[in-house]
C-alpha cells in the first residue's frame, strides 16, 4: 500500500490501577487529572503540548463559547437521533498514551476479539500489530516507514504531520487556516472540539504539487470513559492535489464514548482534495449497549476551479451525526459527496452533506446510500443552497435507501434553497429492499445466503465504493460484510 501511515493511539487506562502510568508523562498530578471540563483543563492540555499563546487563547475562547452554548442549552437536538443526555463533566478530556512498556508485547497478549476482527477485515499481520498497539517494534517500524516517505514528501515541500507538531513547526500555516472553514462558533460540538482537541493530522501541499502518495491516518479510541477530539486540517495550495484517507477500522468493545472531531479542508485556486473515510467506531452491542457517539463537523472550502470530494463509508458508531460539506466559494469549483452509511442492530445514523454554492458555474454531486438493518435508523439529511451570485450552479442529488428486514427505518430530509433562477437541480430518491427473488437467484447458483446478501448490498453501494482508492474499497466491502453479520439469515 503506497500510503504513509501515521498512527494516533491512546492506550487503555485503568484509573484504579496503582501501577498505571500516564504515558509519556509520569506527572503525579496528571494521574489525578479529573474528569470534566474547565478553563484549567484547557490550559493543562495546551501546556502538555507546549503550545504557543495564540493557540491557548483560541482554545479558551472556544471553551467560553461552548460554555455559553451549554448554559443556553444549545446542544443541537434537531437530528433524528435518540440517546441519553451526555454528561460533559463525566468525561476524561485528556488521556495520554500509556507507556510503551505496558503495551502488549506480542499479539498473544492482545484481546482475541480484536484479533478476530482484524482477521475478518483482512488486515495484514504487521498492520494488525500496529493497530493493536503491539508496541515497540511495530510502532517504531511504522515510524521508520513514515520517515521513508517523509523524505519523498519533503522533497516536494509537502508537510504531513500530527496537528501538535504542526502547531510547533508550522505555526504560520496553522494560524492562517485553523478555523477558517469551521470557526469555533460553528456549532456546539465544533466549539467543544476547538477547546479540548487532543491531536490529529495536518497536511499542506504547496502550489502546483501533486502529492505522489495517499496520506493516511488511523484513529482509535481506547481509553474507557474518555472522549476523543481530533482535529484535521488539510490545505491544497493553488493547483495542488492530495488524496487523504482516514481510517477508524479497529472497533473497540467498551462503554459509550464521545467522539467529536473537526476536519477542515481548504482547496485554493485549482487545488483538489479527495478525502476518503472508513468509519468503524465501535457500534455498541447487539442490543444497543455502549458504542461511540460520533459528532463530527467536516467541511471544505473551494476557491476558483478547485475541487473537494468527500467519500465516506460509515459502518460504525452507535450514533452518527456527520455532514461533510463544501462551501463552493470560487467560480467553477466542484463539490462531491459520496456516502454509504449502515445502521444495524440499534445503531442510528443521521448523516448527509451541505453544498453551498456561492461562485458562478459551481457544480455539486451528492450520492448517498443508506443501509438499514436490524433496528437501525438511517436518516439522510442534505442541504443544497444556491446563493444569489451563483449563476448557472448545478446540483445532482441521488439518495437511495436499502432496507434489510422490517424493523429498521430509512428517512430522507432534503433541504433546498435556491436564490438564483439559473440554477439547475436534480433530485432522485429511491427506497428498496433486498428482494427474496434476488437472494434466491444468487443462492440457486451455489452462493451462500450470507454471501448473497453481501453481494447484493455491496453491488447496491457500488457507485460510492468505486470512488474509494482500491485498497480502501476492498476494506470497505469486507467491513460491510462484517457489520451486517447477524442481520441476515
Amino acid at each position, binding site marked *: 500500500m503506497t500510503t504513509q501511515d501515521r498512527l494516533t493511539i491512546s492506550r487503555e487506562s485503568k484509573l484504579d490501577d496503582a501501577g498505571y502510568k500516564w504515558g509519556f508523562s509520569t506527572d503525579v498530578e496528571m494521574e489525578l487529572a479529573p474528569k470534566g471540563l474547565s478553563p484549567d483543563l484547557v490550559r493543562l492540555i495546551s501546556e502538555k503540548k507546549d503550545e504557543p499563546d495564540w493557540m491557548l487563547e483560541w482554545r479558551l475562547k472556544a471553551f467560553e463559547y461552548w460554555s455559553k452554548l451549554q448554559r443556553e442549552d444549545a446542544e443541537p437536538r434537531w437530528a433524528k437521533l435518540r440517546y441519553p443526555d451526555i454528561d460533559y463533566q463525566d468525561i476524561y478530556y485528556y488521556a495520554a498514551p500509556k507507556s510503551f512498556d505496558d503495551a502488549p508485547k506480542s499479539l498473544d497478549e492482545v484481546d482475541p476479539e480484536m484479533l478476530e476482527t482484524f482477521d475478518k477485515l483482512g488486515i495484514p499481520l504487521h498492520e494488525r500489530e500496529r493497530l493493536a498497539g503491539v508496541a515497540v517494534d511495530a510502532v517504531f517500524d511504522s515510524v521508520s516507514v513514515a520517515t521513508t516517505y517523509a523524505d519523498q514528501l519533503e522533497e516536494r515541500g509537502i508537510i504531513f504531520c500530527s496537528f501538535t507538531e504542526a502547531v510547533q513547526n508550522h505555526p504560520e500555516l496553522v494560524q492562517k487556516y485553523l478555523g477558517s472553514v469551521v470557526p469555533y462558533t460553528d456549532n456546539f460540538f465544533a466549539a467543544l472540539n476547538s477547546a479540548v482537541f487532543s491531536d490529529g493530522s495536518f497536511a499542506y501541499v504547496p502550489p502546483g504539487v501533486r502529492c505522489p502518495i495517499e496520506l493516511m491516518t488511523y484513529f482509535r479510541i481506547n481509553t474507557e470513559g474518555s472522549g476523543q477530539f481530533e482535529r484535521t486540517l488539510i490545505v491544497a495550495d493553488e493547483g495542488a492535489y492530495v488524496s487523504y484517507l482516514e481510517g477508524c477500522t479497529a472497533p473497540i468493545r467498551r462503554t459509550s464514548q464521545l467522539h467529536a472531531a473537526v476536519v477542515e479542508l481548504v482547496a485554493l485556486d485549482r487545488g483538489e482534495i479527495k478525502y476518503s473515510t472508513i468509519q468503524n467506531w465501535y457500534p455498541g452491542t447487539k442490543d444497543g449497549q455502549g458504542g461511540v457517539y460520533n459528532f463530527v463537523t467536516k467541511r471544505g472550502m473551494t476557491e476558483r476551479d478547485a475541487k473537494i470530494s468527500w467519500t465516506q463509508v460509515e459502518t460504525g458508531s452507535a450514533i452518527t451525526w456527520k455532514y461533510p460539506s463544501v462551501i463552493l466559494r470560487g467560480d467553477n469549483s466542484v463539490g462531491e459527496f459520496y456516502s454509504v452509511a449502515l445502521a444495524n442492530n440499534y445503531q442510528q445514523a443521521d448523516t448527509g452533506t451541505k453544498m453551498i454554492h456561492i461562485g458562478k458555474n459551481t457544480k455539486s454531486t451528492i450520492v448517498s446510500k443508506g443501509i438499514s438493518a436490524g433496528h437501525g435508523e438511517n436518516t439522510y439529511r442534505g442541504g443544497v443552497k444556491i446563493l444569489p451570485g451563483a449563476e448557472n450552479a448545478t446540483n445532482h442529488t441521488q439518495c437511495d435507501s436499502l432496507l434489510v428486514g422490517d424493523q429498521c427505518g430509512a428517512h430522507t430530509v432534503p433541504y433546498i434553497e435556491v436564490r438564483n433562477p439559473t440554477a439547475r437541480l436534480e433530485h432522485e430518491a429511491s427506497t428498496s429492499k433486498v428482494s427474496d427473488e434476488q437472494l*434466491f437467484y*444468487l*443462492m*440457486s*447458483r*451455489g452462493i*451462500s*445466503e450470507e454471501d448473497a446478501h453481501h453481494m447484493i448490498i455491496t453491488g447496491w453501494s457500488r457507485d460510492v465504493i468505486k470512488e474509494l482508492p482500491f485498497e480502501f474499497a476492498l476494506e470497505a466491502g469486507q467491513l460491510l460484510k462484517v457489520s451486517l453479520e447477524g442481520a441476515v439469515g
Partner: protein
Amino acid sequence: MLKIENLHAAVTDSDEVILKGIDLEVNPGEVHAIMGPNGSGKSTLANVLMGKPSYTVTDGDITVDGESIVEMMPDERAHLGLFLAMQYPSEVPGVRPWQFLKAAKDAIDDANGQKKTSVRQFSKLFDEKVEEIGINPDLIKRSLNEGFSGGEKKRNEMLQMQVLDPRIAIMDETDSGLDIDALQAVADGVNKMRSPERSFVIVTHYQRLLHFVHPDIVHVLVDGKIVETGDASLAEKVEQNGYRDYLAAQRNGK
C-alpha cells in the same frame, strides 16, 4: 438420478396448493420436456426443485441419487449439481456478471472439495462461452441482468449454465422470447452438454426448441399434475391440439 414422488407443494404461509401430486423420474443422460397451459405449475415445479423458499413442500419427496433434498437450501442443491435457468431472472444492480459467476463457481467447487479456478483460467472459459452464446460483450460490463432485454437475459442464463456445468439442468422457458439465432445457440449449447451423465428438464411451450433438442420423454402438466407422458411425438400432438381436451377431462373429473 432425480426422483420426484407424490410431490405436493403450496405457496408458503398460505393454503394455495399448486403442485398436487407429481411423480417423475429422470435418469442420467435423459432429456425431459414439460409442457402445459399457463398457470399449470411448471415454473412452480422448477422452483420447488431448486428450493425456492416461497414454496413449501407439503407432501411427497424429491431425491437426488437416493438422498432427499427437500430440506436443503438452494445453494446446497446447486452444490449437488442442480441448476435452474429461470423464466424471469432477477436484476442485481452493481454486481458484474463475471464477478457473480466466479463467486458461484468457486462456491460450488469449494463445496465439492475442488480447487478454485484461477482468475486467468476462469476468464478464458468465460470469454469463450460469451462468444459461443453470442452475448454482446458490452452487456457483461453492466450489472447482472440490469437493463438486459428479455432475450439477453435468457442468453445470460445459458452462459451461467454452461460455466457452472450442472448434472441436472432445469430450463424454464429459456426458449421464450429468443430470436432464431439465439434459439440455435441455446440448442447447440444444450446438445453439446448432453452426455450420459447429465440430464435436462426443459419447460417449454413450443416445438421450436424440441426440433433442435430432441427430448427422450415429454410430460404434460395440467393443474399441478402430470396428466400424460410420452415420447417426442406427444409434443407435436400438444402443439396441434392444444390443451383443450386435458382441461375438459380435468373439469369432468372434478
